[in-house]
Structures are given as structure tokens and as C-alpha cells.
């Protein structure tokens, strides 16, 4: 009831990347990959902690990652890691006011200087780097 009266979009609105250009898609991907990497980190700690249960338990756990499903998950993790890092650097520099343009007299049709081609290029480069890293990772993992 309170949410309806406040009329907030909530998580569904926040997680909708479709309405506000590539910058919002980049924001959405950054959050998604962040959550994905957090899940991987927890899984990774769980996996490596199995070593305290002895060599047999450790090798049994390792076998799980040596399956096609395990390779697919690792390939996705590589992509998430590369995108999150590359786009994160762009966002961190932007947060310091670097690469967001200079204030000036706005002229119709009022294109925002902060949503400039350098920012867009960096987003596309981040996506492309992630795709390349995934392809390389997949080639290594599935290659043998």
C-alpha cells in the first residue's frame, strides 16, 4: 500500500535497462555482473574450503568444475569479470568528473555532454573486451 502511494518504480524499474539508452544498459550490466561475481566469490570460497576436508573431498569438488556446465559457468565469470573491471574504470573516472564533458551553454536539441561519445565508446569497448575474453576462455577450457 505504502509503495503504491509513494509510486516508486522499485527494483523492477531500477533493473529495467530498456528506456534510457546505452548508459542505462551499462549501469544494469554493471550491477548484474557485480551480483554474479559476488555469487562466484561465495561459491569459490566454498569450493576452495573443501580442501580442509582432505584430498578426496578436494578432488571431488574439482571434478565439478571440469564438466561442460562448469566450463560454461567459468566462461561467464570471465566475461563478467572483464566487463565489470573495464566499465568500472570508466565509471570511477567519471565519478571524479573525468571524461564527463565541460559545462557550457545548452543548445537545442540539448544533447547531454556527459553522455558523450567517449563514454559510449568505453561502454562498447568494455562489452567487446568481455566478449573477446569469453571467447578466449571458452577456447582454452573446451580446447583440451
Amino acid at each position: 500500500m505504502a509503495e503504491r502511494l509513494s509510486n516508486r518504480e522499485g527494483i523492477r524499474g531500477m533493473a529495467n535497462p530498456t528506456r534510457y539508452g546505452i548508459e542505462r544498459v551499462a549501469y544494469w550490466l554493471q550491477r548484474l555482473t557485480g551480483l554474479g561475481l559476488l555469487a562466484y566469490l561465495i561459491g569459490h570460497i566454498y569450493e576452495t574450503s573443501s580442501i580442509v576436508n582432505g584430498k578426496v573431498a578436494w578432488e571431488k569438488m574439482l571434478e565439478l568444475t571440469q564438466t561442460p556446465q562448469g566450463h560454461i559457468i567459468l566462461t561467464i565469470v570471465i566475461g563478467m569479470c572483464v566487463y565489470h573491471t573495464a566499465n568500472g574504470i570508466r565509471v570511477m573516472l567519471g565519478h571524479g568528473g573525468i571524461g564527463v564533458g565541460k559545462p557550457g551553454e545548452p543548445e537545442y536539441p540539448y544533447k547531454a555532454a556527459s553522455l558523450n561519445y567517449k563514454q559510449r565508446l568505453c561502454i562498447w569497448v568494455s562489452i567487446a573486451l568481455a566478449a573477446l575474453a569469453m571467447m578466449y576462455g571458452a577456447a582454452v577450457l573446451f580446447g583440451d
Partner: protein
Amino acid sequence: MAVVAIPKASEEATSAPTPTTQPNTITLRISRFNPSNDSLPTFAEFKIPVQKWTTVLEAILHVKQNLDHSIAVRYSCRQASCGSCGMKINGKPALACYTKISEIGSKVVTVEPMSNFPIIRDLAVDFKQLFSDHKKMKPFIMRDDSEITPGTKEFVQTPKDLEKFLQFSYCIKCGLCNSACPTMATDESFIGPQGLAQAYRYVADNRDQGKKDRLKIVDQSHGIWRCHFAGSCSHVCPKGVDPAMAIQLLRGYLMGFRK
């Protein structure tokens, strides 16, 4: 017997002026909601004639005038100067007076109240929080002396000094940026892009001496650090204010990139 002369094809082309502005018919879906009576918003549909210059606000006013006068909508200047008629048009925040139906490119136009603002009724939303956050930013020049003190001169600024904050002073407080912001969607205590951009507007003004005060106000958990530079605020701003740029430049002061 009456004889009707049929003009030849070539004659017809020159003698009969064809209307160039045939009205189209579109379906306008208006969100209806009265918090005191309704449990959920509903949509009322109206078929209305539009010309290529008809704005969404004119279409709503056509409905209000001819089909259903009970629709609640806030508007005033009709020229993107007052910031009253912000609403979601086909899911995206925009000024109704500044959006032509022909530019939307759809035969169905859906108008809803702006997200992240409480609904008063139908398309009218409550701006209490926006105005309160705006006031918190102390939107005035802060300094000890004054231009009107006898014996003092006006505070001179160069065009370069002016350029540093001018675009941010064009904010009309329409609330579209707050409506598009993904952080505003989930954090009701967030100051929002409008307030933060106004803080920068005064911090960047070389006549102002309240930078420390304002930076202290925005440097809090629901303040500037909750902006993740999604850029949606600047994407929807109808006046070219670019709140995303203002927020990042303001954060530059807190991070030590700017003095």
C-alpha cells in the same frame, strides 16, 4: 437531367486543393487513480483526432474539454518553461507540452503519472520531497558581504565564470530526472539528481562561499555516493541541464580531483 462535368486528371491536380493536414486518430490511454477511492490505477481510453503538431498536453486537454472533464492534470505555460506537466509518456518521463504525438510514432499513447513521486490524482503528482530536497541544498548565494551594502560594487563575473554554472541554473524543477533515476526508484531518502545538480550549481558559482556547507549536506549515505552515473537523468532532461555531469563534477570536489 443534371449533367455533372468530371474534370480531367490534369485539371483536377491543379484546381482541387488537397488538404495537407488530415487529422489522424490515435488512442490516448490515461492513467486514472484517486488514492482516496481506488485501490489500483486503471486506464481510460479515448479516441481523439490529432494533427502533426498536436502535443500530448493538447491531446489530454482535448479529452478534458470534450470527453471527460474529471481528469486531473497539472500544467501551466505550455512551452517547457514552468515544469508542471511532467509525466510518463509511453513509459518514459517527458514534458507533455514538449512532446508531439507525431514524434512518438505510435497510434497508442499511454500517459501515466511520473514514477518516484506520490500520486495526488490521475496525472498530478506530489512535489513535496523534490522541493524540500531543493531547499536543503541552500539554493542561494551564500557570503558575508552583499551587493546592496553601501560602498560595495556588484560581484563581477567573467563569461568563463558564468559558463561553469549557467546550464545548471536552467533547471525548471519538472522532476523528470528524479523520475528516471534508478536510485530514486528504490531509495526514498536519496536527494536525487535535481537536488544534487542544484548543489553543484551554487558550488561552481565563484560568488558563492558556501561550498563547505553544501558538500557536507551531500556527503552522506543517501546523498551523492548513491549516484552510480547511469545517466538517465540527463537523458530525459528537457532543458539540457545535464544533472549527471553536475553530480560527477560535484563528486570531484569530495574526491579531491577539484579544489
